[in-house]
C-alpha cells in the first residue's frame, strides 16, 4: 500500500501535507482500501475552527461510515468540491485529486507520524 515519503500521517489513517502554514488533509490509500467504494464525503465547512483530534466530518462507503478527524489546529480555508461531487476520487487518487480539506494552522502540529511510523502502524493492523 502506498505511503508517500513527503507526507505526514495520523493513527486515524489520514495524511497531512504542510505548505506555507496551510495543511492539506486526506485519507490514506490504506484507509480507502479498507473502506471499499466511497459513496459520500462531508468535509468540514470553510471558516470552521478545528482542533486536533476533533471529529469534523464523515466518509461513507457501501458498507460503513467513518468520522473524519482534524489532525491539526486552525481554520478550514478550503474543501475539495470535486471530491464531494465525485467521492470515488478519494478511492482512486487518495493523495492527489481525492484530498478533503485545507486548514490554515494556528499552531504547529504535534504528534504527526512519519511515513516509516505510519507504515509500521498499518503493518501491525494488517
Amino acid at each position, binding site marked *: 500500500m502506498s505511503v508517500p515519503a513527503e507526507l505526514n500521517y495520523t493513527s486515524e489513517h489520514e495524511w497531512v501535507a504542510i505548505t506555507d502554514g496551510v495543511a492539506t488533509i486526506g485519507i490514506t490509500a490504506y484507509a480507502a482500501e479498507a*473502506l471499499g467504494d466511497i459513496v*459520500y464525503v462531508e468535509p468540514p465547512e470553510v471558516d470552521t475552527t478545528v482542533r486536533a483530534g476533533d471529529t469534523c466530518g464523515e466518509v*461513507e462507503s*457501501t458498507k*460503513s*461510515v*467513518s*468520522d473524519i478527524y482534524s489532525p491539526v489546529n486552525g481554520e478550514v480555508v478550503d474543501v475539495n468540491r470535486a471530491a464531494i461531487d465525485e467521492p470515488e476520487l478519494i478511492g482512486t487518487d487518495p493523495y492527489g485529486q481525492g484530498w478533503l480539506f485545507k486548514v490554515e494552522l494556528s499552531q504547529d502540529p504535534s504528534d504527526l507520524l512519519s511515513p516509516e511510523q505510519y507504515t509500521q502502524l498499518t503493518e501491525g493492523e494488517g
Partner: protein
Amino acid sequence: MTALGNEAASAPRTTPLYEVHQGLGANLVDFAGWLMPLRYRSETAEHRAVRETAGLFDLSHMGEIHVIGTQAAAFLDYALVGHLSRLTVGRARYTMITAEDGGVLDDLIVYRLADDEYLVVANAANHDTVVAALTDRAPGFDARVDDRSVGYALLAVQGPASARVLEPLTDADLSNIRYYTGYRCSVAGVPVLLARTGYTGEDGFEIFVEPGTDAPRVWEELAKAGEEHGLTPAGLSARDTLRLEAGMPLYGNELSADITPFDAGLGRVVKFEKEGDFVGRAALARAAENSRPRRLVGLVGRGRRVLRSGHEVLCDGRNVGTVTSGAPSPTLGVPIAMAYVDGGLDITSGAFSVDVRGRAEDVDIVELPFYKRDR
C-alpha cells in the same frame, strides 16, 4: 478514521475455494463463522457486472441439509410452513421454518431431488438452529436429517449472461432448467446439482458441487468460459446490495425469531391449505387474522447520506419505525433501504425522514422491490 475492517473472534472455517480467493486478492471477512470474500476489487463494479453481464460467487457457507426417507415429504409438510409434498421432483420452493409461536427461524430454499429425498438450503448463520429444529421434529416420521453443509461447495453464476457462460461447460440442456428448478448433472466434468435460483434479482444458476469433488476446477472453468462474457468474481458486499435492490429479505435484518412471515409481507409462504398440523400453524393462523403490528416498506433517500440498519424512521418528527437494511444503490444511484414501520401508519401522507446520526434525512416511502429486471 475509525472502525476499519471486522476482526475475526475465533478462527473461521474456510470454503473449498479459499485458495482461489487468495489468488484473486479477495478481501476476506468472517461471515457467520466462515471466511468469505467481501469483495475482490470494487463492490460497485461487481454489482454492476451482475446487472449487466454476470458475476461468480462462492456461497459455500450456506447450509445443505438432505432429508431422506419414505415420509420425507410428510415430514417437511409438518416441519416447515410450505406445502413441500406438492413439490414435483426437480422443482424448488422458497419457504420458511418457524417456531411454535410463528417466529421465523430461517428462510429456506427446498429442492425435491427424488420422491423420497429433499435438499434444504439454510442460511449459514442459522445452520445449527435449522439442523436442530429439523432433527427435533423428525421422530415419528420415516425421514432422516443428513447435514452435508461442510462437504458441499456452492457456486453461483448470476446475471443476464449466466446461461451463455454455463452452456459450454454442462451436459444439461439449460432451456429445460427453468426458474426454481434444479437437477443433477455435470459442470466442467464434476457432478453437481444445477439450479436456476439466486438472490440477486437476475437470471442465474446456483451450482451445488457434491462433497468430495473438485470445486476449484468448477470455479476455474467458469471463470475461463466467462471471460468473453464479462463474468467477474463477486463478493458478499455486492450480493447484499443486489438482494436489497431486488427487495429480498435477509435473515438477521428483515427476518428474525420476533417476526412472523406476515410481518415481513411474506404470508404467502404459509400454506394453511395443506393437510394436518404443522409447527407454528395455530400462531400463524392468528397472525394472519390479526392486524399487522408492523409492515416492511422501501425507502429512497432524497440526499446522499446512506440509510443503514438501526436508523430510526420518522414521520413528522415522530419515531414510526426502524431501518433493517440500507445501502447506496449502485443501479439507481440513490440511498435505498428497507424498514419496518408501525402497522397502523398511513404511509400515503406525512413527511418521512430517517435519523442518520442525529440529522434527519428526507426519504420517500416506495413499493418494493426497488429494481426488477426486464424479462
